[in-house]
């Protein structure tokens, strides 16, 4: 395991210290908890957004705490959903009286831990609502199963619902716009290499030199199938075809995110974007905005995901709104 760390047991705590030292203007850490909140939390009268999950997805979610996006981010152990008490602490710290929206990614652990936190908050009469992001089309959606995972599309929820909250919308309205994003965003990813959870000390799976995993999430897990490595254009074609087959994007305007999983250079993400944009152009789908970079990572995994969000006027306006966070700034 080759990592720039000190002790696998303390990676999350040490990382958070480093974040706070780097961005005191944006975030502070709740003493005794692995929770980052806006330096000026709670923002009185504003709906607050709290997200989080296991660590190892940086800049998600702490990097998106700031004006126009999140109010708080809860950092679990690496790839492990945070515990309810941590989430609850975040909720208390950011609640400015207008209620708190929990943005949860659809994983059994996240769902249950955030749900328990919401129960705790309800007991203290804090108004809490939740949305569950499940954008990953690699996984079959079914009420009989765990359902689709939440992956990089979550960042669009942070951005857009965060802008709505900043604009003074009510908890109900912010929740509704978050749900609109969730209903309209789809993603799919792939990887060329596994990654190593520091405490596990060895790679999450093994891949031959000519193999890749298609349809995988952001927790170092294997994908839905293994294949021989194809040229970038063919890989992108598969990802985009799966996405476009899931909801009707015909004639619509979209936002695109080419998300790196942590170990893939920007060069390759842009090569992916070249194909994504040409495919969408061919199909008459208009790209309104494109994000390329490491937004929702899986430690040092090499690979990437494509997310496509169908826009309407409301979503466009909120997507364009100013944001000022450590990892996402927009004028």
């Amino acid at each position, binding site marked *: 395991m080759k990592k720039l760390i000190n002790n696998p047991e303390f990676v999350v705590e040490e990382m958070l210290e480093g974040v706070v030292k780097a961005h005191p203007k944006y975030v502070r850490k709740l003493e005794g908890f692995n929770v980052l909140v806006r330096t000026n939390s709670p923002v009185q009268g504003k709906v607050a957004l709290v997200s989080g999950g296991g660590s190892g997805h940086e800049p998600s979610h702490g990097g998106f705490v700031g004006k126009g996006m999140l109010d708080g981010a809860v950092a679990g152990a690496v*790839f*492990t959903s945070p*515990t309810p008490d941590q989430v609850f602490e975040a909720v208390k710290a950011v609640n400015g009286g207008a209620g708190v929206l929990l943005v949860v990614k659809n994983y*059994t*652990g996240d769902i*249950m831990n955030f749900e328990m936190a919401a129960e705790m908050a309800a007991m203290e009469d804090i108004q809490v609502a939740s949305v569950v992001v499940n954008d990953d089309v690699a996984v079959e959606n079914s009420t009989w199963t765990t359902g689709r995972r939440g992956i990089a599309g979550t960042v669009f929820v942070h951005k857009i619902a965060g802008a709505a909250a900043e604009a003074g919308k009510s908890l109900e309205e912010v929740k509704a716009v978050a749900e609109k994003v969730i209903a309209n965003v789809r993603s799919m990813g792939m990887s060329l290499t596994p990654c190593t959870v520091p405490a*596990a000390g060895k790679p999450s799976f093994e891949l031959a030199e000519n193999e890749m995993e298609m349809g995988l999430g952001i927790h170092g*897990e*294997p994908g839905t199938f293994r294949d021989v490595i194809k040229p970038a254009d063919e890989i992108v074609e598969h990802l985009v075809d799966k996405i476009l087959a899931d909801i009707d994007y015909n004639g619509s305007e979209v936002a695109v995110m080419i998300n790196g999983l942590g170990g893939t250079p920007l060069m390759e993400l842009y090569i992916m974007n070249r194909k994504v944009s040409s495919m969408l152009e061919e199909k008459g789908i208009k790209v309104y905005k494109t994000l390329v970079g490491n937004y929702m990572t899986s430690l040092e995994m090499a690979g990437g995901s494509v997310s496509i969000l169908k826009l309407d006027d409301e979503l466009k306006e909120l997507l364009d709104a100013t944001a000022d966070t450590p990892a996402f700034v927009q004028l």
Partner: protein
Amino acid sequence: MIHRDLLLKMIEEITMVIGANKQYLTDLDQTIGDGDHGINMDRGFRAIKDKVEAVKDKDCGTILKTVAMGLISTVGGASGPLYGTAFMKAGQVVANKMEITAEDAVKILDEAIQGIIARGKAAQGDKTMLDALIPAYDALKAAVEEGEPLTNAMGKAVEAAEGGVAYTKTIAAKKGRANYLGDRSIGHQDPGATSSYLMLKAIYDVLTREA
């Protein structure tokens, strides 16, 4: 009959067994999950040590609830809330009691399972910890109802749990992360079912050793 002190020994034994199997459980989870189950469980049980120590003179219910709260606030992931809920429900069964009878034991496992189902919305056959726990419960209940001594009954429960773990190898997951793998999860043993089995086995080992 399990006296409070024996219960404490069981918790210690579970902590030890989970620690010894940390890598094993993590390896299982790397194959079909995200490779943290052993790490999570070990972190949780190591964290409860001092907390349990602080209530070691209290009743069984308090001890079990202390375990529950400790697991909930340190394990995280799917297994944290699930095992946390299970211990919480178990504690409610023996609130204010200094001893656990065989009948209590059956009730505990029942309540624990109901708690897990309520929280996790999984069913038997979904390739989860329930596939170890439900057969264990059935075996325990039958044996206790037939009047077998608790140690024997627990032995049967452990056997049934072991069978349940083996069964998880044959099915595709419907719940938890392994579900994402679709049929690729077939052939691999569920880590949560395995940790459930290990915990039951630890309890049984204490019973036989101390009997």
